[in-house]
């Protein structure tokens, strides 16, 4: 039994790695055929640059800074999104009052609020936080509303007939009932937050002339605008992708752990 699980997991990892490996080989072969003067990034060069950036280029610090912003912004969005989402999901009056304004802000891309964010909050962390929380807020909110509104009404009635006070129904029925949707919303939110922070740092970096804000996005901007190091940019891209993958897997694992009744 255990062995079967292990082999199937091994197979899954093998499958997941095959395509990236083939792409790497193709990339390397293609790059080796380019003239020496070409700025095309080489896989081997990229690996070397990666070691260099980690050991003395401040890649880890930049990553930690970006992640710190994403996590903080995510929790701001989570708190706001869950609270407003529960209110909207359980009260028609609140939903009808808030829905139009939320639906008209939702399509405005996080980057579109960047000019205002920079003017109000400057080019530092608070600006980045504003954009990240803005981006992460909508997935949390929309999914929480959805989760709350599709809770079986009978469950609420059942709780009431068992003498559960009104406010306790919230914590004992509404919250656990909406949890699957909240977690799904959180996973999506974390994804867009990570996307937004890189873009925000890139743009804030441009505005502040490569100084100031820090983070991995700004690091990329510096490699792009000042030292023109394609290999380093590719390293940053790979790191961003890997972190996104890791975040997604952590959330999926949390979903399985927190929702044992779903499997």
């Amino acid at each position, binding site marked *: 039994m255990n062995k079967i699980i292990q082999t199937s997991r091994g197979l899954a990892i093998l499958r997941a790695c095959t395509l990236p490996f083939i792409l790497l080989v193709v990339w390397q072969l293609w790059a080796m055929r380019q003239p020496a003067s070409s700025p095309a990034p080489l896989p081997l060069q990229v690996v070397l640059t990666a070691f260099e950036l980690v050991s003395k280029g401040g890649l880890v610090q930049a990553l930690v800074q970006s992640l710190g912003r994403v996590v903080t912004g995510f929790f701001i969005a989570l708190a706001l999104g869950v609270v407003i989402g529960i209110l909207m999901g359980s009260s028609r009056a609140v939903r009808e009052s808030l829905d139009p304004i939320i639906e008209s802000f939702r399509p405005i891309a996080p980057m579109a609020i960047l000019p205002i964010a920079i003017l109000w909050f400057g080019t530092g962390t608070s600006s980045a936080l504003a954009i990240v929380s803005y981006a992460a807020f909508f997935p949390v909110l929309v999914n929480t509303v959805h989760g709350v509104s599709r809770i079986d009404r009978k469950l609420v*009635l059942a709780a009431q*007939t068992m003498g559960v006070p009104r406010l306790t129904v919230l914590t004992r029925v509404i919250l656990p009932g909406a949890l699957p949707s909240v977690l799904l919303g959180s996973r999506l939110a974390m994804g867009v937050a990570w996307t937004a922070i890189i873009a925000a740092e890139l743009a804030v970096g441009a505005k502040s002339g490569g100084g100031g804000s820090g983070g991995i996005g700004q690091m990329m901007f510096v490699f792009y605008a000042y030292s023109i190091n394609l290999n380093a940019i590719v390293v940053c891209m790979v790191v961003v992708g890997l972190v996104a993958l890791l975040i997604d897997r952590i959330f999926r694992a949390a979903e399985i752990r927190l*929702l*044992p*009744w779903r499997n």
Partner: protein
Amino acid sequence: MTEQTQSPCKLHLQGVSKSFIAPRTGEKTLAVTDVNLDIDSGEFICIVGPSGCGKSTILNMVAGLDTPSTGTIEKDGAPVTGPGADRGVMFQDYALMPWQTVEQNVGFGLRFGTPGKPFTPEQREERIRHFIKLVRLNGAEKKYPHQLSGGMRQRVALARLLANGPDILLMDEPLGALDAQTRLILQVELLQIWGQTAPREQRKTAIFITHDIEEAVFLADRVVVMSSHPGRIRAVIPIELPRDRSEHTRAEPNFGRHVDQIWSLIRDEAYRAIGGSEEVAAPV
């Protein structure tokens, strides 16, 4: 009438009606009208009637989940104003919390329960164990509802209803979703758990909704027959079958007589509901 305070009358419904207003059209529908019914303590009442006769509406009003448009509902002489742990409800589709295990579901209300009578954690554990055993779900304590069969879920709902210790059991077609065999078994079990072998004062008062006439006759002390458009009480039939009832009860002459009597009360309406006429469809 000095005996009035001594009366075992548990539930008193007088002149109860309920109308709903459709949210879009504003059209008013009378769901039930002119319901007068006194239910004694320890009595098992079944309500039968065609769909749409307002059976569930009456149950919901007694539970306090709906308020009557006119009339009064009194329990132990005091008007019913809202839901409470003294009137437990077992819903048609069980309404178990899907994120809770069997034992968590059974213990769901125990933290709140009857005001002024909180259980200690040990008492809660004890009660959960007791009622899980009573409905024969031992071994399934850690399972989630989706891992259980329909019959097992129904037992969890029953255990949860009883564990919470209500005075009045309100059951809305609890066996409706089960296959015929499981139903027959659970009907007998339900009567055992309700306490048909116990003296009357130890039994709970029960209101049980069904559209199965045989089920109603098998379970009830009295069967309330309803008709629809608008929903109202057509007749209240006392069932002359001894307790304790078992599989053999169905073979008694009175059983068939009561089933026939109730069917003759609602057959016209049942035929009308399916669009046929009684004369054409009548058997040879």
